[in-house]
C-alpha cells in the first residue's frame, strides 16, 4: 500500500510539473495525538492530489504552544500551517497574526462546520482556523458498577446524582473509586475542569468590569462540593491526576465514573487497551439546575500564520485536512470510529458514523456548549473553560496551583479562593483591565 501511495505521489508530482503547476514544500506544526498521527500517515493522498509535499513537526502540546507562539510573535516563518486551539485562535486573529479564512472554496462548504466550532475559531465573524477535530466533555461510567450500586444514570445527570452515585460505587478495599476527575495544576488540566464545573454552579471568573469573582458564594460552593466529593469517592492523590492518569485508572477498572473529554470515549471502548471496554456508557456532563451544564468546548484547528511564503499551498493543505473527503478517506482506511469527530455537521447525519456508540453523546455535548454564553450571570469574556484573553493562561495556571494545593490538603478552600482572588485582581490590574 505504501509503495502504491508513493508511486501515486510520484506520478502526481510528474504530472503537475509537466503542467507547470508549482509544487511546494510546506511545514506543518502539530500535536501528538491519534487523529493528527493518522493524518500524517495519509499525507500521500494530499501530495497525490496537489503535488505539494509536507514536512511534519510533531511536538508535545505545551512545547508546541510555546514554539508556535515564539514563531508567530517574531514572524519567524518556521511553519506554514500551525495546529492551534480555541483559546489562541480569536486572540491571534485579532492581532492580525493569522491569515483570515474568508475565501475557502465552495467545495469545502464552510457552512457545514459545526456552528459552535466555527464560532469559537472566529474573531468578529471571520474564521481564522479550520477545525480538524472538536471535543466537549461528558460522563463516562461503568454500567456494571452503576447497576451493582442499584442506581441508574440519567442521560443528563445533576451534580447531586453524580456525588451520590460516586459514594455508592466506591469500594476502597478493592481500589474502586466512584469518580475520577482532573485535579492537576495547569490551566488546561485541572483548571479547565474546575472552570467548566463552576459555570454550572453559577460562578464566573470576572464580572462585567473584569473584577475577579473568587470571593463569591458560587465559587465557594463549587470548590467545597468538588473537594468533599473527591475526598469521599475519588482516587488517592487526585490533586495530581490529569487526563492520562485518569485514563489509566479507568482503563484498569478503578473508576466508576470519569468526567472528561469526549475524545476519551474511543480509548475506553477500545478492547486493546481497556479492560472495561464492554462495560462503558455515556451521559451528558452534570448540571446544577441553573441552566448551564459543566461541559467544555475545545477544538484543535489548523491555521496559517500571516507572512508565510507558502500561503496558497498551506490553504490547499488546510482545506484537504479538514474536508468532508478527508473524513471519508479515514473512514475507508481506518473505520468510522477513527474519523476526526466534532468538526462537521454532515458527519452527524451519516448513519455509518451515528452507529458508533459515543457519536450521539459527543454531538449532544458539543451542541450543549456555548462559548459566547457560558455563565449563568453575564460575563465579559468568550470561552467556557477559559476566558479568551491573552493574560488568562498565566493567571489560570497560578490559580489552579492554589486549587490543587487545597485538593492536596495543604491549605483550606477558603485560603485557596482568597489567594486566587488576589492573584487574579493583581494581574488584571497590571494588564490594564481594571
Amino acid at each position, binding site marked *: 500500500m505504501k509503495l502504491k501511495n508513493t508511486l501515486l505521489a510520484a506520478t502526481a508530482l510528474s504530472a503537475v510539473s509537466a503542467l507547470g503547476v508549482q509544487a511546494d514544500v510546506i*511545514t506543518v*506544526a502539530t*500535536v*501528538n*495525538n*491519534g487523529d493528527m*498521527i493518522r493524518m*500524517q*500517515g495519509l499525507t500521500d493522498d494530499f501530495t497525490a492530489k496537489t503535488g505539494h509535499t509536507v*514536512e*511534519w*513537526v*510533531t*511536538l*508535545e*502540546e*505545551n*512545547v508546541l504552544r*510555546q*514554539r508556535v507562539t*515564539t514563531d508567530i510573535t*517574531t*514572524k*519567524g*516563518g*518556521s*511553519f506554514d500551517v500551525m495546529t492551534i486551539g480555541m483559546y489562541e485562535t480569536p486572540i491571534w486573529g485579532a492581532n492580525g497574526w493569522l491569515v483570515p479564512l474568508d475565501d475557502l472554496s465552495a467545495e469545502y462548504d464552510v457552512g457545514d462546520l459545526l456552528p459552535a466550532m466555527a464560532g469559537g475559531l472566529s474573531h468578529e465573524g471571520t474564521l481564522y482556523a479550520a477545525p480538524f477535530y472538536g471535543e466537549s466533555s461528558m460522563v463516562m461510567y461503568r454500567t456494571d458498577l452503576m447497576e451493582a450500586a442499584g442506581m441508574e444514570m440519567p442521560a443528563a445527570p445533576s451534580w447531586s446524582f453524580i456525588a451520590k452515585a460516586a459514594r455508592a460505587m466506591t469500594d476502597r478495599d478493592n481500589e474502586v473509586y466512584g469518580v475520577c476527575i482532573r485535579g492537576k495544576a495547569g490551566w*488546561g*488540566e485541572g483548571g479547565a475542569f474546575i472552570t467548566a464545573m463552576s459555570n454550572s454552579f453559577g460562578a464566573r471568573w470576572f464580572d462585567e468590569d473584569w473584577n475577579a469573582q473568587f470571593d463569591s458564594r458560587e465559587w465557594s460552593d463549587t470548590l467545597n462540593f468538588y473537594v468533599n466529593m473527591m475526598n469521599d469517592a475519588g482516587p488517592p492523590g487526585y490533586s495530581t491526576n*490529569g*487526563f*492520562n492518569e485518569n*485514563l*489509566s485508572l479507568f*482503563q*484498569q477498572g*478503578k473508576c466508576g465514573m470519569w468526567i472528561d*473529554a469526549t*475524545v*476519551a470515549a474511543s*480509548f475506553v471502548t477500545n478492547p*486493546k*487497551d*481497556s*479492560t472495561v471496554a464492554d462495560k462503558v456508557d455515556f451521559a451528558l456532563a452534570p448540571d446544577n439546575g441553573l441552566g448551564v451544564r459543566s461541559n467544555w468546548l475545545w477544538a484543535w484547528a489548523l491555521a496559517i500564520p500571516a507572512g508565510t511564503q507558502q500561503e496558497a499551498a498551506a490553504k490547499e493543505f488546510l482545506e484537504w485536512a479538514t474536508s468532508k473527503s478527508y473524513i471519508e478517506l479515514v473512514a475507508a482506511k481506518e473505520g468510522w470510529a477513527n474519523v476526526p469527530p466534532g468538526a462537521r455537521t454532515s458527519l452527524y447525519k451519516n448513519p455509518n458514523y451515528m452507529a458508533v456508540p459515543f457519536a450521539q453523546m459527543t454531538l449532544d455535548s458539543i451542541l450543549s456548549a456555548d462559548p459566547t454564553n457560558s455563565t449563568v450571570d453575564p460575563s465579559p469574556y468568550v470561552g467556557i473553560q477559559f476566558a479568551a484573553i491573552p493574560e488568562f493562561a498565566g493567571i489560570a495556571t497560578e490559580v489552579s496551583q492554589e486549587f490543587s494545593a487545597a485538593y492536596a490538603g495543604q491549605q483550606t478552600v477558603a485560603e485557596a479562593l482568597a489567594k486566587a482572588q488576589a492573584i487574579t485582581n493583581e494581574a488584571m490590574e497590571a494588564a490594564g483591565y481594571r
Partner: protein
Amino acid sequence: MARSNSMQLKMLTTVAAWSIGLMIFFPILWTILTSFKTEAQAIASPPLFLNFDWTLENYQVVQERSNYMRFLWNSVFIAGGSTLLGVLIAVPAAWSMAFVPSKRTKDILLWMLSTKMLPAVGVLYPLYLIFIELGVLDTRLGLIVVLMLINLPIIVWMLYTYFKEIPGEILEAARMDGATLKSEIFYVLMPMAVPGIASTILLNVILAWNEAFWTLNLTAAKAAPLTAFIASYSSPEGLFYAKLSAASTMAIAPILILGWFSQKQLVRGLTFGAVK
C-alpha cells in the same frame, strides 16, 4: 582484627557503590523495559518488571512514524560540530589563561561561568530574532554556534584546569628549542593534555546531545535533533509511555554506547583534572 575491619569496610563501600550505581541507572533500565511493553502494560498497577509479554511493536511504530536517521544525523552533526568548534576556541583561550595569566584572569573565568547561571528563556526572544535576521533559524549551523557558546565556559574551565597541571617549564624548554606558538600548543601542550582534552570532548558531546531547550526552540523540520524526536512522542491526551520509552531508548542508545566504550578515558580525564 584490622584485616577483618578493612574487609568489612571494603564490602560496605562496594555495596554502597553498587547501590548508588543501580539507583542512577534504574530510570534508564525502566525506560528500556517499558519500551518492550504494550501501552496497557506500561501503565499497569502494580508495575510489571520482567513478567510481561515482550514486544517490539513500539519500535516498529516509531520507525514507521519518524525518520530516525535524520534526527540522529542532526544530533551527531550538532553535538560533534559544537564540541569541535568549542575546543578549537577554548584551547588557545585556556592556554593563555593557564600560562600567560593577567591579573583579571580569575575574574574572566568566573564571569564566563556566571553566564551559565542566566535562565535560557530570558534570551529566547532576542536570540530568535537574531536567528531570523541571520537566516539561520532551523539550521544545523545556527545550533552548532549556539551550543558551542553555551558550553564554551565549561570547555575553557576544564581545559584551563588540565593545563594548570602541566609544568610551565616544559613549554619554556620548547620555546628555547625554537618552537613557535603553534608548535608549542600542538606538539607539546596538547599531547600532554590528551586525557583532559578527550574527557572534555566527551563530556561536551554528552551535554550537547542532551540539550533540549535550544534544540527544540530553534528548529522546525530540517535541523531538529533527537530531543525533538523524543518530544514528538509525548501526549497530554492518550497513552504514550511505551512508544515514548522506545523513542527515548533509541535517542540515548548512541550516547550510552559511546559512554560505555570511552568510560576509561572519561573517568581518567575527570579524576585527572577539573573535578578531582
